[in-house]
């Protein structure tokens, strides 16, 4: 028994809504992504591989992924702490803080980029302190890391927060009456419940950081092999009118972030199966 493509429905507007949805999706998203893949296919595997397999491109790709991973790991820990503090504790300014966590979503990346640079440059407020201590933040990988932490900050906090709100106190009380210490309860009861949501936030932060451009390029210094991120290399290739080269890096980035999302999805399914839906 084959299912019909569309089930009968008394509600009107099928043609119109499907038409608008599929037309806009095709023109704005699918056609352009198809053009990228087509450019890759047209230039062939050899040309693509030659464009990717240079020290400079590998350097940029590895730098983007390595720093994004570190930033996402920092945000994983910090985001869980933020969610916990915002839900469980009461202190003055909590609601303001709650609203402010979304700032990196609302603040344009170019604004964040120049602000972070002004702050961490050797003559900036934080940069001067670092300079006195003998190290440099802006125009080094540390600067890139700070920018990536900024853009990824809200993801884990926002995915974990609703889960913390829904934890039933009885579970914690049961654990305590059975003699578990608070640390034991957190380690074995609470953190496992937060894991699926935290991993989702981690994956979202990672995907966002890997592709981030605006907030990074001002603070990065953009020195090939040292502080040149993959999206910047795409822009450079485009400015040289090297479309096959730009497309090769673009496809590589698409593939790697797609694979990372799949991997994290698998981890999530696994942890859900072990712990159950929360």
């Amino acid at each position, binding site marked *: 028994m084959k299912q019909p493509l569309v089930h009968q429905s008394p*509600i009107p507007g099928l043609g119109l809504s499907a038409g608008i949805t599929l037309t806009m999706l095709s023109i704005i998203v699918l056609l*352009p992504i198809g053009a990228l893949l087509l450019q890759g296919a047209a230039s062939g595997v050899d040309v693509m591989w030659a464009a990717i397999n240079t020290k400079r491109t590998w350097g940029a790709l590895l730098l983007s992924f390595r720093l994004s991973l570190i930033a996402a790991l920092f945000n994983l820990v910090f985001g869980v702490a933020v969610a916990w503090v915002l839900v469980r504790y009461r202190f003055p300014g909590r609601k303001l803080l709650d609203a402010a966590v979304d700032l990196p979503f609302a603040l344009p*990346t*170019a604004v964040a980029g*120049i602000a972070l640079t*002004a702050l961490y440059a050797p003559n900036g407020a934080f940069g001067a302190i670092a300079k006195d201590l003998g190290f440099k933040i802006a125009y080094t990988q540390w600067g890139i890391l700070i920018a990536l932490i900024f853009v990824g900050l809200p993801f884990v906090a926002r995915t974990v927060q609703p889960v913390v709100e829904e934890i039933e*106190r009885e579970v914690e009380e049961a654990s305590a009456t059975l003699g578990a210490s*608070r640390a034991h309860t957190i380690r074995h009861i609470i953190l496992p419940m937060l894991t699926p949501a935290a991993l989702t936030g981690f994956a979202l932060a990672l995907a966002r950081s890997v592709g981030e451009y605006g907030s990074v390029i001002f603070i990065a210094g953009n020195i090939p092999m040292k502080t040149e991120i993959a999206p910047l290399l795409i822009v450079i290739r485009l400015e040289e009118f090297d479309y096959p080269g730009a497309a090769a890096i673009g496809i590589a*980035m698409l593939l790697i972030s797609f694979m990372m999302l799949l991997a994290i999805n698998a981890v999530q399914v696994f942890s859900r199966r072990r712990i159950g839906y929360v």
Partner: protein
Amino acid sequence: MSDVPIRFRAATEETPLARFLLIGGVLLGLAVLLFAPLIVVFFEALRDGALAAVASLANPEAASAIRLTLIVAAIAVPLNAVFGIAAAWFVTKFDFRGKAILITLIDLPFSVSPVVAGLCIVLTFGANSLIGGVLVGHGFPIVFALPGIVLASVFVTFPFVARELIPVMIEQGRAEEEAALTLGASGWRVFFTVTLPNIRWALLYGVLLCNARAMGEFGAVAVVSGKIRGQTATMPITIEMLYNEYLSVAAFSLAAVLALLALLTLTLKTGLEWRYADQLAANHRH
């Protein structure tokens, strides 16, 4: 050791020390990571006084950037709202095969780097491409012109409205619309008098986020705009150009305008969350 504890700690609470360290750590972290950059924008903009900041906004380059950004948002946001409503109607009012794939495709732009999005649009509509070549031949360039900037903005904000509406409309079901239909209302009447009032706050929420992103988009627009002064330079692009020319006050003044927009967006968004929590997407925190 004669001190008697005034209050015993509940077994489901952290020790006061742990609590103090957690709150302190989070406050310090957010102050350094979030509030310091925000404050610096205004500090740098006002470095030479408020007059210099205002004067730099009145210069033709900044004024044209502000105008262009408003035009782009005025086209991209309604386009996105129409798409979001149509997609949410299609996905929630009908049952069809491949629904999960469709939703995944709508979400796809979230996981694409803005620069890659710009690259895709250049490869599709650039002067060297099949479609772009024909359009340029007819005097209708897309890349390095307004249509390209609009396309890039719509691409990066594509899921915003649909994502807010779909969960809300799933939760509300189809019964109210079906009842209105049996009472003889036309399709459009059902939409405007039954559906729209149910989803208006979620729609506003999505439009708000969509607008903030559309006005602030940098990476995708940087690739497709060609950065032509006074013509295709949006506010974020102009900020970059001014900053690279060491016109710090001018760059930060324009950045301060966008930062104010971000603060306004956050305020309205928080207001909506407090007031209409029950009518916003279920996957949000309330």
